[in-house]
C-alpha cells in the first residue's frame, strides 16, 4: 500500500470540530509543517490534545482552538508560551487541564478501546473540581474510590518522525519517543511527516527495526517534509531553533505581532519557510539541546 500524500491532502481530510492529537513534547519533535498547514487553512473549532509547545501557541494565536486538552504548554527553555497564555487570560479557549500521566492513561484507554483506566492520580486536586466529567469510581476489589480517567479518542493524530517508508513504517531514533505511539493508537487516522523517506529495505538492516514503535496499521498517511519539525527539535537530526523561538516569543509583545509572524513564516508556504529560516543545511546544524 502506498500511503504517500502531500501536507495539503492531509489538511483537506480534516473537518471543523475534530479532535486532533499532536505528538512530540513542548519544543521537541512536533509536526510543525502540518501545524503550519492548518494555520493556512480555514479549519476551526478544533479540540487539540497535546503536550503543548509552540504548536498549541500558534493554533491559539490563529483562533483555531475551541478546546485544549493539556497538562502544560511550554517551550521549556522559555517556560511560558506567550500565545497560549494570552488565549487563556482572555478566556478564549475551553480547557481540560489534566496531569501529564492522566494524558498518558487517556490515550492508552482509547488505544485499548476501554472507557477509562483507574488511577490515583488527580485525587485531592482541582483537576477533578474543574472537570466534573472525570468521575470517581468504587473499586470492585477494595474499599477505596479511584479516579476513572476517561479515554481520549482522537479523530486524527499528527506526528513527526525521523524517517518512514511509503507503507507507513515509521522510525524514531531520538532518545525519547514521548507518547507518539499512544497518539498513533488512540487515533482513527494518523498522519506522519518524516524528515527522510526511505525504502522498506532500510528497516531490514542491523537493529533499525528496533526504532519502529508502532505497526504500519496505525499509520494512515506519510508526508515527506525535510526539517518538518522546525523550529522544534528532531534529535538526533537537529536541535530546536533557539533564535527562532526567541523571535516567535518576542512577536507576542506587539499587538500586531502574530500577524507579522504569520505573514513572514506561515503565509509564504513551506518551501519559502525553510528558505527564510536558513535552509535545510542550517537547520541540520542546529545543536542538540543540553539540559
Amino acid at each position, binding site marked *: 500500500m502506498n500511503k504517500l500524500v502531500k501536507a495539503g491532502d492531509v489538511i483537506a481530510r480534516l473537518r471543523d470540530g475534530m479532535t486532533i492529537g499532536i505528538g512530540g*513534547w513542548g519544543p521537541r519533535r512536533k509536526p510543525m509543517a502540518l501545524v503550519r498547514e492548518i494555520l493556512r487553512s480555514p479549519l476551526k473549532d478544533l479540540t487539540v490534545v497535546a503536550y503543548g509547545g509552540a504548536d498549541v501557541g500558534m493554533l491559539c494565536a490563529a483562533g483555531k482552538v475551541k478546546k485544549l486538552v*493539556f*497538562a*502544560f*504548554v*511550554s517551550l521549556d527553555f522559555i*517556560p*511560558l508560551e506567550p500565545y*497560549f*497564555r494570552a488565549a*487563556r*487570560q*482572555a*478566556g478564549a479557549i475551553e480547557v481540560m*487541564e*489534566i*496531569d*501529564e*500521566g*492522566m494524558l*498518558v492513561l487517556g490515550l492508552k484507554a482509547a488505544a485499548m478501546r476501554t472507557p477509562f483506566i483507574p*488511577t*490515583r*492520580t*488527580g*485525587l*485531592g*486536586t*482541582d*483537576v477533578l*473540581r*474543574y472537570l466534573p466529567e472525570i468521575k*470517581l469510581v468504587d473499586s470492585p476489589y*477494595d*474499599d*477505596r*474510590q*479511584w479516579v476513572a480517567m476517561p479515554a481520549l479518542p482522537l479523530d486524527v493524530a499528527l506526528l513527526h518522525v525521523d524517517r518512514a517508508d511509503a507503507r507507513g513504517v515509521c522510525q524514531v531514533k531520538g*532518545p*525519547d*519517543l*514521548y*507518547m507518539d505511539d499512544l497518539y498513533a493508537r488512540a487515533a482513527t487516522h494518523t498522519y506522519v511527516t518524516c524528515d527522510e523517506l526511505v525504502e522498506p529495505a532500510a528497516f531490514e538492516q542491523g537493529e533499525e527495526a528496533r526504532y519502529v514503535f508502532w505497526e504500519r496499521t496505525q499509520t494512515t498517511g506519510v508526508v515527506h517534509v525535510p526539517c518538518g519539525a522546525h523550529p522544534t527539535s528532531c534529535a538526533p537530526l537537529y536541535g530546536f531553533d533557539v533564535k527562532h523561538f526567541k523571535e516567535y516569543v518576542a512577536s507576542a509583545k506587539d499587538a500586531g505581532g502574530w500577524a507579522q509572524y504569520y505573514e513572514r513564516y506561515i503565509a509564504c508556504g513551506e518551501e519559502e519557510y525553510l528558505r527564510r529560516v536558513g535552509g535545510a543545511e542550517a537547520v541540520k546544524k542546529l545543536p542538540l539541546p*543540553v*539540559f
Partner: protein
Amino acid sequence: MSNTTLIDTIICAASEAWRHDGEVLATGIGIVPRLAASLAMLTCNRDLLMTDSEAWVVSEPVPVGPRGDYRIKRETHMGFARIFDNVWGGRRHAMVGPTQVDRYGQANISMVGADYRKPKVQMLGVRGFPGNSINHANSFFVPNHSTRAFVEGEVDMVASVGYNPARLARGWQLDEIDIRLIITNLCVMDFGGPGHQVRLCSLHPGVTAEAVQQATGFPLHVPAEVKSTPAPTTEQLALLARLDPHGLRASALGA
C-alpha cells in the same frame, strides 16, 4: 552573607531531603533542586538514581550547563513514558518549585487568579504535580519566601494534593501523602507540626522566626528552639564547584 554563600547553604540544606530515601529516583526541577539532588547522590545517599534531565538514568550526576568533554554515564533508558512508570510505582522523591503553597502543602504552578476560566496570570499548567503528589515523596524549593508564595487561603489551583482532610476521597488517609521539606531563601520547614502543620526547622543565617512568620500567609509551628541552617562543608563546596562548573547557581535567587 553574600548571595553565593546563601545559595550554597540552601542547596546543602535541600540535599538533606533525600538522606533517608534509599534507592529512589531523585528529581530536582530547576537548578537549585537539581544541584541539591546531585549533591545528595554524591554524599548522604549514594544509592539514589538520577537522570540526565533528558532521557537516561545516569550513574553519576551530570554537571549543569555546557558540558565540554564530559560524557554522561548511562545506566538505563528513562524517556517520559518510563518516568510515569516510575512515578506510579512510587519510588521517587521530587523537589519542585511551586509558585504558590498553602498551609496544607497544596501547591500550584498552573494559574493565578480568582477565575479559573480567565486566569489573571496563566503559568505552565498542572504538569505532573497531581500524579507526583499522590504517588511519591515531594519537597519544595521556594526562592522568594513571601505571603504571595505562602498564601493565606488555599492555592488558586490545587495542582498537587496536600494534607487537607476536606479533599480526601473515600478510603484514603492523609498519612499516604508524603510531603517532606520546604526550602526557601529564609529557612527550612517541614510538616512535622501538630496535625501536619507546617513547622519551622532551621533558619538561614541572620533570619528570625518572626521574619519568617511575617512572610508566611498562615500560622507556622515554631518549636521553642530553632537551629541555624548549617553552613556548607569544604567537601560540599568542592562538589558543588564540580557539579556547577560555570557558577550558574549564583543567580538562582534572582540576584
